[in-house]
Protein backbone atom coordinates (compact mmCIF):
# COMPACT_ATOMS: atom_id res chain seq x y z
CA UNK A 1 0.00 0.00 0.00
CA UNK A 2 1.22 3.48 -0.87
CA UNK A 3 2.54 5.42 2.08
CA UNK A 4 3.34 8.61 0.13
CA UNK A 5 2.29 11.58 2.19
CA UNK A 6 2.31 13.83 -0.90
CA UNK A 7 -1.46 13.63 -1.27
CA UNK A 8 -3.29 13.75 2.06
CA UNK A 9 -5.83 11.22 0.75
CA UNK A 10 -3.07 8.68 0.08
CA UNK A 11 -2.06 9.14 3.72
CA UNK A 12 -5.67 8.63 4.79
CA UNK A 13 -5.90 5.43 2.73
CA UNK A 14 -2.66 4.17 4.33
CA UNK A 15 -4.09 4.92 7.77
CA UNK A 16 -7.35 3.13 6.99
CA UNK A 17 -5.32 0.27 5.55
CA UNK A 18 -3.39 -0.27 8.79
CA UNK A 19 -6.51 0.03 10.96
CA UNK A 20 -8.97 -1.88 8.77
CA UNK A 21 -6.99 -4.45 6.78
CA UNK A 22 -7.22 -7.22 9.37
CA UNK A 23 -10.92 -6.61 10.00
CA UNK A 24 -11.75 -6.50 6.28
CA UNK A 25 -9.80 -9.70 5.47
CA UNK A 26 -11.40 -11.43 8.47
CA UNK A 27 -14.92 -10.58 7.36
CA UNK A 28 -14.30 -11.36 3.68
CA UNK A 29 -12.74 -14.72 4.64
CA UNK A 30 -15.98 -15.64 6.38
CA UNK A 31 -18.04 -14.49 3.39
CA UNK A 32 -15.83 -16.12 0.74
CA UNK A 33 -14.61 -19.15 2.70
CA UNK A 34 -11.06 -18.61 1.39
CA UNK A 35 -8.23 -16.44 2.76
CA UNK A 36 -6.46 -15.81 -0.56
CA UNK A 37 -9.68 -14.74 -2.31
CA UNK A 38 -10.43 -12.48 0.65
CA UNK A 39 -6.99 -10.83 0.44
CA UNK A 40 -7.42 -10.24 -3.31
CA UNK A 41 -10.82 -8.65 -2.80
CA UNK A 42 -9.60 -6.38 0.01
CA UNK A 43 -6.57 -5.39 -2.10
CA UNK A 44 -8.93 -4.48 -4.97
CA UNK A 45 -11.01 -2.33 -2.62
CA UNK A 46 -7.98 -0.39 -1.38
CA UNK A 47 -6.80 0.21 -4.97
CA UNK A 48 -10.26 1.57 -5.75
CA UNK A 49 -10.12 3.77 -2.62
CA UNK A 50 -6.89 5.32 -3.91
CA UNK A 51 -8.65 6.12 -7.22
CA UNK A 52 -11.95 7.38 -5.82
CA UNK A 53 -11.30 9.04 -2.47
CA UNK A 54 -9.20 11.95 -3.83
CA UNK A 55 -12.30 13.18 -5.74
CA UNK A 56 -15.21 11.86 -3.70
CA UNK A 57 -13.55 12.37 -0.31
CA UNK A 58 -12.96 9.81 2.43
CA UNK A 59 -16.31 8.15 3.28
CA UNK A 60 -17.71 8.56 6.82
CA UNK A 61 -17.22 4.86 7.59
CA UNK A 62 -14.06 3.95 5.63
CA UNK A 63 -13.85 0.40 7.08
CA UNK A 64 -17.44 -0.36 6.08
CA UNK A 65 -16.79 1.10 2.62
CA UNK A 66 -13.77 -1.22 2.18
CA UNK A 67 -15.72 -4.35 3.23
CA UNK A 68 -18.75 -3.53 1.04
CA UNK A 69 -16.55 -2.64 -1.94
CA UNK A 70 -14.38 -5.74 -1.49
CA UNK A 71 -17.51 -7.89 -1.45
CA UNK A 72 -18.80 -6.32 -4.68
CA UNK A 73 -15.39 -6.59 -6.33
CA UNK A 74 -15.27 -10.28 -5.36
CA UNK A 75 -18.62 -10.89 -7.09
CA UNK A 76 -17.36 -9.06 -10.21
CA UNK A 77 -14.19 -11.13 -10.19
CA UNK A 78 -16.12 -14.41 -9.89
CA UNK A 79 -18.25 -13.51 -12.90
CA UNK A 80 -15.11 -12.92 -14.95
CA UNK A 81 -13.13 -15.98 -13.88
CA UNK A 82 -15.52 -18.79 -13.11
CA UNK A 83 -13.54 -21.65 -11.57
CA UNK A 84 -14.99 -24.22 -9.22
CA UNK A 85 -13.73 -22.60 -6.00
CA UNK A 86 -14.93 -19.24 -7.15
CA UNK A 87 -18.40 -20.57 -8.08
CA UNK A 88 -18.73 -21.95 -4.56
CA UNK A 89 -17.63 -18.66 -3.07
CA UNK A 90 -19.97 -16.69 -5.32
CA UNK A 91 -22.90 -18.83 -4.24
CA UNK A 92 -22.01 -18.10 -0.62
CA UNK A 93 -21.65 -14.37 -1.33
CA UNK A 94 -24.95 -13.95 -3.11
CA UNK A 95 -26.75 -15.34 -0.11
CA UNK A 96 -25.29 -12.70 2.22
CA UNK A 97 -27.16 -9.41 2.37
CA UNK A 98 -25.25 -6.29 1.27
CA UNK A 99 -25.74 -4.31 4.45
CA UNK A 100 -23.49 -2.84 7.12
CA UNK A 101 -22.07 -5.51 9.39
CA UNK A 102 -22.94 -5.58 13.05
CA UNK A 103 -20.11 -4.63 15.40
CA UNK A 104 -20.33 -8.01 17.17
CA UNK A 105 -20.01 -9.94 13.93
CA UNK A 106 -16.93 -7.95 12.90
CA UNK A 107 -15.26 -8.68 16.25
CA UNK A 108 -15.98 -12.37 15.92
CA UNK A 109 -14.48 -12.33 12.42
CA UNK A 110 -11.21 -10.91 13.77
CA UNK A 111 -11.06 -13.53 16.50
CA UNK A 112 -11.79 -16.29 13.97
CA UNK A 113 -8.96 -15.09 11.75
CA UNK A 114 -6.55 -14.82 14.69
CA UNK A 115 -7.34 -18.34 15.91
CA UNK A 116 -7.01 -19.66 12.35
CA UNK A 117 -3.60 -17.98 11.88
CA UNK A 118 -2.49 -19.40 15.24
CA UNK A 119 -3.89 -22.91 14.74
CA UNK A 120 -1.64 -25.42 16.55
CA UNK A 121 -1.35 -27.48 13.33
CA UNK A 122 0.81 -24.62 11.96
CA UNK A 123 4.42 -24.08 13.10
CA UNK A 124 5.05 -21.12 15.40
CA UNK A 125 7.04 -19.38 12.61
CA UNK A 126 4.11 -19.83 10.22
CA UNK A 127 1.67 -18.55 12.88
CA UNK A 128 3.69 -15.37 13.51
CA UNK A 129 4.23 -14.69 9.79
CA UNK A 130 0.61 -15.25 8.83
CA UNK A 131 -0.70 -13.12 11.71
CA UNK A 132 1.50 -10.20 10.63
CA UNK A 133 0.40 -10.62 7.01
CA UNK A 134 -3.33 -11.04 7.50
CA UNK A 135 -4.15 -9.16 10.72
CA UNK A 136 -1.36 -6.61 10.57
CA UNK A 137 -1.58 -6.04 6.83
CA UNK A 138 2.25 -6.03 6.58
CA UNK A 139 3.76 -6.77 3.18
CA UNK A 140 6.13 -9.73 2.75
CA UNK A 141 9.36 -7.61 2.56
CA UNK A 142 8.38 -5.75 5.77
CA UNK A 143 7.73 -9.03 7.62
CA UNK A 144 11.02 -10.48 6.36
CA UNK A 145 12.99 -7.44 7.55
CA UNK A 146 11.22 -7.37 10.90
CA UNK A 147 11.71 -11.07 11.66
CA UNK A 148 15.24 -11.15 10.17
CA UNK A 149 14.23 -13.94 7.78
CA UNK A 150 14.99 -13.97 4.02
CA UNK A 151 12.15 -12.59 1.89
CA UNK A 152 11.84 -15.84 -0.11
CA UNK A 153 11.47 -17.86 3.11
CA UNK A 154 8.81 -15.47 4.36
CA UNK A 155 6.87 -15.62 1.09
CA UNK A 156 7.08 -19.41 1.12
CA UNK A 157 5.84 -19.60 4.73
CA UNK A 158 2.79 -17.49 3.85
CA UNK A 159 1.95 -19.54 0.75
CA UNK A 160 2.42 -22.88 2.55
CA UNK A 161 0.43 -21.86 5.61
CA UNK A 162 -2.48 -20.61 3.52
CA UNK A 163 -2.40 -23.77 1.41
CA UNK A 164 -2.40 -25.97 4.52
CA UNK A 165 -5.34 -24.07 6.02
CA UNK A 166 -7.28 -24.64 2.80
CA UNK A 167 -6.19 -28.23 2.01
CA UNK A 168 -6.35 -29.60 5.54
CA UNK A 169 -9.65 -27.89 6.28
CA UNK A 170 -8.57 -25.77 9.27
CA UNK A 171 -11.95 -24.50 10.50
CA UNK A 172 -12.71 -20.77 10.50
CA UNK A 173 -14.23 -20.42 13.93
CA UNK A 174 -13.62 -19.26 17.48
CA UNK A 175 -12.79 -22.25 19.70
CA UNK A 176 -15.30 -23.30 22.33
CA UNK A 177 -14.74 -22.56 26.02
CA UNK A 178 -13.58 -26.16 26.51
CA UNK A 179 -10.98 -25.83 23.73
CA UNK A 180 -9.56 -22.49 24.91
CA UNK A 181 -6.97 -23.90 27.35
CA UNK A 182 -5.27 -25.55 24.34
CA UNK A 183 -6.02 -22.91 21.73
CA UNK A 184 -5.41 -19.63 23.56
CA UNK A 185 -1.71 -20.11 24.50
CA UNK A 186 -0.44 -20.13 20.88
CA UNK A 187 -2.43 -16.94 20.15
CA UNK A 188 -0.92 -15.19 23.18
CA UNK A 189 2.55 -16.48 22.27
CA UNK A 190 2.26 -15.16 18.71
CA UNK A 191 1.28 -11.68 19.92
CA UNK A 192 4.12 -11.79 22.45
CA UNK A 193 6.62 -12.92 19.78
CA UNK A 194 5.48 -10.13 17.44
CA UNK A 195 6.27 -7.69 20.24
CA UNK A 196 9.65 -9.17 21.14
CA UNK A 197 10.66 -9.32 17.46
CA UNK A 198 10.12 -5.57 17.38
CA UNK A 199 11.51 -4.88 20.85
CA UNK A 200 14.74 -6.87 20.66
CA UNK A 201 15.80 -4.95 17.57
CA UNK A 202 14.08 -1.63 18.14
CA UNK A 203 17.49 0.04 18.14
CA UNK A 204 18.21 -1.05 14.60
CA UNK A 205 19.21 1.74 12.26
CA UNK A 206 17.12 3.63 9.72
CA UNK A 207 14.18 2.04 7.94
CA UNK A 208 14.72 -1.24 9.74
CA UNK A 209 14.18 0.51 13.08
CA UNK A 210 10.90 1.90 11.79
CA UNK A 211 9.62 -1.54 10.80
CA UNK A 212 10.56 -2.88 14.23
CA UNK A 213 8.65 -0.06 15.92
CA UNK A 214 5.65 -0.94 13.77
CA UNK A 215 5.84 -4.53 15.03
CA UNK A 216 5.65 -3.32 18.64
CA UNK A 217 2.69 -1.11 17.81
CA UNK A 218 0.96 -3.96 15.98
CA UNK A 219 1.47 -6.36 18.92
CA UNK A 220 0.01 -3.82 21.36
CA UNK A 221 -2.91 -3.28 18.99
CA UNK A 222 -3.55 -7.05 18.75
CA UNK A 223 -3.31 -7.40 22.54
CA UNK A 224 -5.88 -4.60 22.91
CA UNK A 225 -8.19 -6.29 20.39
CA UNK A 226 -7.85 -9.61 22.27
CA UNK A 227 -8.51 -7.94 25.63
CA UNK A 228 -11.60 -6.27 24.21
CA UNK A 229 -12.83 -9.53 22.67
CA UNK A 230 -12.03 -11.77 25.66
CA UNK A 231 -12.24 -9.51 28.73
CA UNK A 232 -12.79 -12.51 31.02
CA UNK A 233 -9.50 -14.27 30.24
CA UNK A 234 -6.95 -13.21 32.91
CA UNK A 235 -3.95 -14.22 30.78
CA UNK A 236 -5.20 -12.10 27.86
CA UNK A 237 -5.25 -9.08 30.17
CA UNK A 238 -1.90 -10.16 31.63
CA UNK A 239 -0.37 -10.10 28.15
CA UNK A 240 -1.87 -6.67 27.45
CA UNK A 241 -0.47 -5.27 30.74
CA UNK A 242 2.94 -6.81 30.05
CA UNK A 243 3.15 -5.26 26.57
CA UNK A 244 1.89 -1.86 27.79
CA UNK A 245 4.55 -1.72 30.49
CA UNK A 246 7.33 -2.84 28.12
CA UNK A 247 6.15 -0.39 25.47
CA UNK A 248 6.02 2.45 28.01
CA UNK A 249 9.82 2.17 28.31
CA UNK A 250 10.58 1.72 24.61
CA UNK A 251 11.68 5.32 23.91
CA UNK A 252 14.01 5.29 26.94
CA UNK A 253 15.79 2.14 25.72
CA UNK A 254 17.78 4.24 23.25
CA UNK A 255 20.17 7.02 24.14
CA UNK A 256 20.52 10.21 22.05
CA UNK A 257 23.30 8.49 20.03
CA UNK A 258 21.03 5.50 19.33
CA UNK A 259 22.86 3.29 21.82
CA UNK A 260 21.02 0.72 23.93
CA UNK A 261 20.30 1.91 27.49
CA UNK A 262 19.75 -0.84 30.09
CA UNK A 263 16.82 -0.53 32.52
CA UNK A 264 19.04 0.54 35.44
CA UNK A 265 20.42 3.51 33.47
CA UNK A 266 17.24 4.67 31.73
CA UNK A 267 15.95 8.23 32.08
CA UNK A 268 12.66 7.44 33.77
CA UNK A 269 11.19 10.80 32.74
CA UNK A 270 11.18 9.43 29.18
CA UNK A 271 8.83 6.58 30.10
CA UNK A 272 5.31 6.98 28.73
CA UNK A 273 3.34 7.83 31.90
CA UNK A 274 -0.05 7.13 30.32
CA UNK A 275 0.99 3.60 29.26
CA UNK A 276 2.51 2.96 32.72
CA UNK A 277 -0.73 4.07 34.40
CA UNK A 278 -2.84 1.93 32.07
CA UNK A 279 -0.61 -1.12 32.61
CA UNK A 280 -0.65 -0.68 36.39
CA UNK A 281 -4.47 -0.43 36.40
CA UNK A 282 -4.75 -3.73 34.51
CA UNK A 283 -2.27 -5.43 36.87
CA UNK A 284 -4.21 -4.19 39.94
CA UNK A 285 -7.48 -5.53 38.51
CA UNK A 286 -5.79 -8.89 37.86
CA UNK A 287 -4.42 -9.08 41.40
CA UNK A 288 -7.98 -8.72 42.70
CA UNK A 289 -9.08 -11.55 40.44
CA UNK A 290 -6.46 -13.91 41.92
CA UNK A 291 -6.05 -16.34 38.99
CA UNK A 292 -2.33 -15.88 38.24
CA UNK A 293 -0.68 -17.14 35.05
CA UNK A 294 2.73 -16.60 33.41
CA UNK A 295 1.80 -13.42 31.50
CA UNK A 296 0.15 -11.87 34.55
CA UNK A 297 3.20 -12.55 36.74
CA UNK A 298 5.53 -11.10 34.08
CA UNK A 299 3.27 -8.03 33.94
CA UNK A 300 3.45 -7.76 37.74
CA UNK A 301 7.28 -7.87 37.55
CA UNK A 302 7.24 -5.03 35.01
CA UNK A 303 4.79 -3.17 37.27
CA UNK A 304 7.30 -3.32 40.14
CA UNK A 305 10.05 -1.97 37.88
CA UNK A 306 7.90 0.85 36.51
CA UNK A 307 6.72 1.69 40.04
CA UNK A 308 10.22 2.73 41.16
CA UNK A 309 11.06 6.42 40.79
CA UNK A 310 14.78 5.54 40.48
CA UNK A 311 16.57 2.26 39.71
CA UNK A 312 17.93 2.22 43.29
CA UNK A 313 14.37 2.31 44.67
CA UNK A 314 13.37 -0.90 42.86
CA UNK A 315 11.72 -3.36 45.27
CA UNK A 316 13.95 -6.31 44.32
CA UNK A 317 12.51 -8.55 47.07
CA UNK A 318 9.12 -8.18 45.42
CA UNK A 319 10.65 -8.88 42.00
CA UNK A 320 12.37 -11.99 43.36
CA UNK A 321 9.14 -13.24 44.99
CA UNK A 322 7.36 -12.82 41.65
CA UNK A 323 10.13 -14.70 39.83
CA UNK A 324 9.76 -17.52 42.37
CA UNK A 325 6.08 -17.64 41.43
CA UNK A 326 6.87 -17.50 37.70
CA UNK A 327 9.44 -20.29 38.06
CA UNK A 328 6.81 -22.45 39.79
CA UNK A 329 4.37 -21.80 36.92
CA UNK A 330 6.94 -22.21 34.12
CA UNK A 331 10.03 -24.06 35.37
CA UNK A 332 12.36 -23.28 32.46
CA UNK A 333 16.09 -22.40 32.50
CA UNK A 334 15.31 -19.01 30.90
CA UNK A 335 13.00 -18.05 33.79
CA UNK A 336 15.62 -19.35 36.26
CA UNK A 337 18.18 -17.07 34.58
CA UNK A 338 15.95 -14.00 34.93
CA UNK A 339 15.25 -14.92 38.54
CA UNK A 340 19.02 -15.06 39.16
CA UNK A 341 19.28 -11.39 38.10
CA UNK A 342 16.80 -10.47 40.85
CA UNK A 343 18.59 -12.79 43.29
CA UNK A 344 21.85 -10.91 42.67
CA UNK A 345 20.16 -7.66 43.75
CA UNK A 346 18.71 -9.23 46.92
CA UNK A 347 21.45 -11.68 48.01
CA UNK A 348 24.49 -10.50 46.07
CA UNK A 349 26.25 -11.69 42.89
CA UNK A 350 27.89 -14.78 44.41
CA UNK A 351 24.78 -16.94 45.08
CA UNK A 352 23.31 -15.65 41.78
CA UNK A 353 26.39 -16.82 39.84
CA UNK A 354 26.11 -20.26 41.47
CA UNK A 355 22.53 -20.50 40.18
CA UNK A 356 23.50 -19.27 36.70
CA UNK A 357 26.45 -21.65 36.40
CA UNK A 358 24.14 -24.60 37.09
CA UNK A 359 21.94 -23.70 34.09
CA UNK A 360 22.37 -25.42 30.73
CA UNK A 361 21.92 -22.55 28.24
CA UNK A 362 25.13 -22.56 26.15
CA UNK A 363 23.50 -21.12 23.00
CA UNK A 364 21.35 -18.50 24.74
CA UNK A 365 22.91 -15.03 24.42
CA UNK A 366 21.37 -13.52 27.63
CA UNK A 367 22.92 -16.38 29.66
CA UNK A 368 26.43 -15.15 28.75
CA UNK A 369 25.46 -11.50 29.30
CA UNK A 370 24.17 -12.23 32.82
CA UNK A 371 27.26 -14.33 33.62
CA UNK A 372 29.52 -11.56 32.34
CA UNK A 373 27.80 -8.93 34.49
CA UNK A 374 27.97 -11.11 37.62
CA UNK A 375 31.64 -12.04 37.03
CA UNK A 376 32.43 -8.35 36.55
CA UNK A 377 30.78 -7.45 39.84
CA UNK A 378 32.67 -10.24 41.62
CA UNK A 379 36.00 -8.82 40.38
CA UNK A 380 36.88 -11.43 37.75
CA UNK A 381 37.52 -9.16 34.73
CA UNK A 382 39.21 -11.79 32.53
CA UNK A 383 36.39 -14.31 32.96
CA UNK A 384 33.81 -11.54 32.49
CA UNK A 385 35.46 -10.48 29.23
CA UNK A 386 35.39 -14.06 27.97
CA UNK A 387 31.67 -14.27 28.75
CA UNK A 388 31.09 -10.99 26.84
CA UNK A 389 33.04 -12.46 23.90
CA UNK A 390 30.77 -15.50 23.90
CA UNK A 391 27.68 -13.25 24.08
CA UNK A 392 29.01 -11.18 21.16
CA UNK A 393 29.42 -14.34 19.07
CA UNK A 394 25.68 -14.91 19.55
CA UNK A 395 24.56 -11.33 18.79
CA UNK A 396 23.68 -10.16 15.28
CA UNK A 397 21.96 -6.86 16.11
CA UNK A 398 24.39 -3.95 15.65
CA UNK A 399 23.05 -1.79 18.50
CA UNK A 400 23.20 -4.68 20.94
CA UNK A 401 26.72 -5.55 19.77
CA UNK A 402 27.86 -1.98 20.39
CA UNK A 403 26.37 -2.14 23.88
CA UNK A 404 28.12 -5.43 24.73
CA UNK A 405 31.45 -4.21 23.33
CA UNK A 406 31.16 -1.13 25.54
CA UNK A 407 30.42 -3.29 28.58
CA UNK A 408 33.34 -5.58 27.81
CA UNK A 409 35.66 -2.57 27.74
CA UNK A 410 34.17 -1.16 30.96
CA UNK A 411 34.85 -4.41 32.78
CA UNK A 412 38.51 -3.41 32.44
CA UNK A 413 40.06 -6.45 30.86
CA UNK A 414 42.62 -6.06 28.09
CA UNK A 415 40.86 -6.70 24.80
CA UNK A 416 41.81 -10.00 23.19
CA UNK A 417 43.14 -8.23 20.09
CA UNK A 418 40.10 -8.76 17.89
CA UNK A 419 37.26 -6.29 18.09
CA UNK A 420 37.36 -2.54 18.66
CA UNK A 421 39.46 -0.93 21.43
CA UNK A 422 38.35 1.92 23.64
CA UNK A 423 38.72 5.46 22.35
Amino acid at each position, binding site marked *: MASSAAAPVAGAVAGVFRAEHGRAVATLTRLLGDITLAEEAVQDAFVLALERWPEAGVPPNPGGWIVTTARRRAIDRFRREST*RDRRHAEAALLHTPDEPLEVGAVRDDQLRLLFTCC*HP*ALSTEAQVTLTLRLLGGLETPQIARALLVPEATTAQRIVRAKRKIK*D*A*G*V*PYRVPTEAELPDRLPPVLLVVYLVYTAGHSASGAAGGEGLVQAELCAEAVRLARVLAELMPDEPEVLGLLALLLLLDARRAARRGPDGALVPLSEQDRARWDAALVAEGHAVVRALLRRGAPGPYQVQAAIQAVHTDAATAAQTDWRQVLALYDQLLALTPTPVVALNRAVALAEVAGPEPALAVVDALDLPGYQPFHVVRAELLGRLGHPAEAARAYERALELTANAVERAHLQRRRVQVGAPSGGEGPRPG
Partner: protein
Amino acid sequence: MKQYLLAVHTDFAAAPPAEDVMQQMFADVEAFNQRLRESGAWVFAGGLTPPESTTVVRTQDGRAVLTDGPYAETKEQLGGFWVVRAPDLDAALEIAQRASVACQGPVEVRPFQDDADDAED
Protein backbone atom coordinates in the same frame (compact mmCIF):
# COMPACT_ATOMS: atom_id res chain seq x y z
CA MET B 1 -17.15 -33.50 4.56
CA LYS B 2 -13.46 -34.04 3.98
CA GLN B 3 -11.53 -37.30 4.14
CA TYR B 4 -8.30 -37.73 6.06
CA LEU B 5 -5.65 -40.44 6.08
CA LEU B 6 -4.59 -41.36 9.61
CA ALA B 7 -1.27 -43.18 9.15
CA VAL B 8 0.59 -45.14 11.81
CA HIS B 9 4.36 -45.39 11.29
CA THR B 10 5.96 -48.39 12.93
CA ASP B 11 9.57 -49.34 13.55
CA PHE B 12 9.37 -52.99 12.55
CA ALA B 13 13.02 -53.57 13.53
CA ALA B 14 12.33 -52.69 17.17
CA ALA B 15 11.51 -55.46 19.61
CA PRO B 16 7.74 -56.08 19.66
CA PRO B 17 5.90 -55.05 22.84
CA ALA B 18 5.14 -57.65 25.53
CA GLU B 19 2.21 -59.99 24.90
CA ASP B 20 -0.16 -58.33 27.41
CA VAL B 21 0.67 -54.86 26.03
CA MET B 22 -0.05 -56.16 22.52
CA GLN B 23 -3.37 -57.70 23.60
CA GLN B 24 -4.40 -54.43 25.26
CA MET B 25 -3.55 -52.53 22.09
CA PHE B 26 -5.63 -54.88 19.90
CA ALA B 27 -8.60 -54.51 22.28
CA ASP B 28 -8.24 -50.70 22.38
CA VAL B 29 -7.99 -50.40 18.59
CA GLU B 30 -11.03 -52.65 18.13
CA ALA B 31 -13.05 -50.51 20.58
CA PHE B 32 -11.86 -47.35 18.80
CA ASN B 33 -12.85 -48.82 15.40
CA GLN B 34 -16.29 -49.73 16.76
CA ARG B 35 -16.84 -46.17 17.94
CA LEU B 36 -15.61 -44.82 14.60
CA ARG B 37 -18.18 -46.97 12.73
CA GLU B 38 -21.01 -45.89 15.05
CA SER B 39 -20.13 -42.18 14.67
CA GLY B 40 -20.21 -42.40 10.88
CA ALA B 41 -16.58 -41.25 10.54
CA TRP B 42 -15.33 -44.67 9.38
CA VAL B 43 -14.40 -45.03 5.71
CA PHE B 44 -11.74 -47.75 5.71
CA ALA B 45 -8.94 -49.06 7.89
CA GLY B 46 -6.39 -51.83 8.07
CA GLY B 47 -3.19 -53.07 9.67
CA LEU B 48 -0.28 -54.01 7.38
CA THR B 49 2.13 -56.93 7.43
CA PRO B 50 5.88 -56.20 7.97
CA PRO B 51 7.67 -54.39 5.11
CA GLU B 52 9.65 -57.51 4.10
CA SER B 53 6.51 -58.76 2.42
CA THR B 54 6.41 -55.65 0.19
CA THR B 55 7.02 -55.76 -3.58
CA VAL B 56 7.64 -52.62 -5.66
CA VAL B 57 6.46 -52.68 -9.28
CA ARG B 58 8.02 -50.40 -11.92
CA THR B 59 7.36 -50.29 -15.63
CA GLN B 60 10.28 -50.40 -18.06
CA ASP B 61 9.66 -50.57 -21.81
CA GLY B 62 6.12 -51.65 -21.12
CA ARG B 63 7.23 -54.56 -18.91
CA ALA B 64 6.85 -54.88 -15.16
CA VAL B 65 10.10 -54.86 -13.19
CA LEU B 66 9.74 -56.13 -9.62
CA THR B 67 11.87 -55.33 -6.57
CA ASP B 68 11.74 -57.23 -3.31
CA GLY B 69 11.21 -55.01 -0.24
CA PRO B 70 9.77 -51.56 0.48
CA TYR B 71 10.17 -48.49 -1.77
CA ALA B 72 11.82 -46.31 0.88
CA GLU B 73 14.65 -47.75 2.97
CA THR B 74 13.62 -45.96 6.14
CA LYS B 75 13.52 -47.30 9.68
CA GLU B 76 9.85 -46.45 10.12
CA GLN B 77 7.38 -47.95 7.65
CA LEU B 78 3.63 -47.62 7.29
CA GLY B 79 2.20 -50.10 9.78
CA GLY B 80 -1.48 -49.41 9.37
CA PHE B 81 -3.96 -46.66 8.61
CA TRP B 82 -7.46 -45.33 8.85
CA VAL B 83 -9.38 -43.30 6.30
CA VAL B 84 -11.92 -41.17 8.15
CA ARG B 85 -14.58 -38.67 7.20
CA ALA B 86 -14.62 -35.41 9.22
CA PRO B 87 -16.12 -31.94 8.80
CA ASP B 88 -12.78 -30.14 9.37
CA LEU B 89 -9.21 -30.55 10.61
CA ASP B 90 -10.14 -30.03 14.27
CA ALA B 91 -12.56 -32.97 14.09
CA ALA B 92 -9.94 -35.12 12.33
CA LEU B 93 -7.30 -34.19 14.94
CA GLU B 94 -9.67 -35.19 17.72
CA ILE B 95 -10.17 -38.63 16.10
CA ALA B 96 -6.39 -38.92 15.60
CA GLN B 97 -5.76 -38.18 19.26
CA ARG B 98 -8.01 -41.10 20.26
CA ALA B 99 -6.37 -43.28 17.59
CA SER B 100 -2.95 -42.42 19.02
CA VAL B 101 -4.05 -43.53 22.50
CA ALA B 102 -5.47 -46.80 21.12
CA CYS B 103 -2.46 -47.76 18.98
CA GLN B 104 0.09 -46.36 21.44
CA GLY B 105 2.03 -44.39 18.85
CA PRO B 106 2.12 -41.20 16.80
CA VAL B 107 -0.59 -40.81 14.15
CA GLU B 108 0.03 -38.74 11.01
CA VAL B 109 -3.02 -36.83 9.75
CA ARG B 110 -3.05 -36.10 6.01
CA PRO B 111 -5.99 -34.64 4.12
CA PHE B 112 -7.20 -36.16 0.84
CA GLN B 113 -7.16 -33.82 -2.15
CA ASP B 114 -10.87 -33.57 -2.82
CA ASP B 115 -13.84 -33.07 -0.56
CA ALA B 116 -15.91 -36.26 -0.53
CA ASP B 117 -19.01 -34.22 -1.37
CA ASP B 118 -17.36 -32.63 -4.38
CA ALA B 119 -16.83 -35.92 -6.16
CA GLU B 120 -19.34 -34.93 -8.84
CA ASP B 121 -17.36 -31.78 -9.77
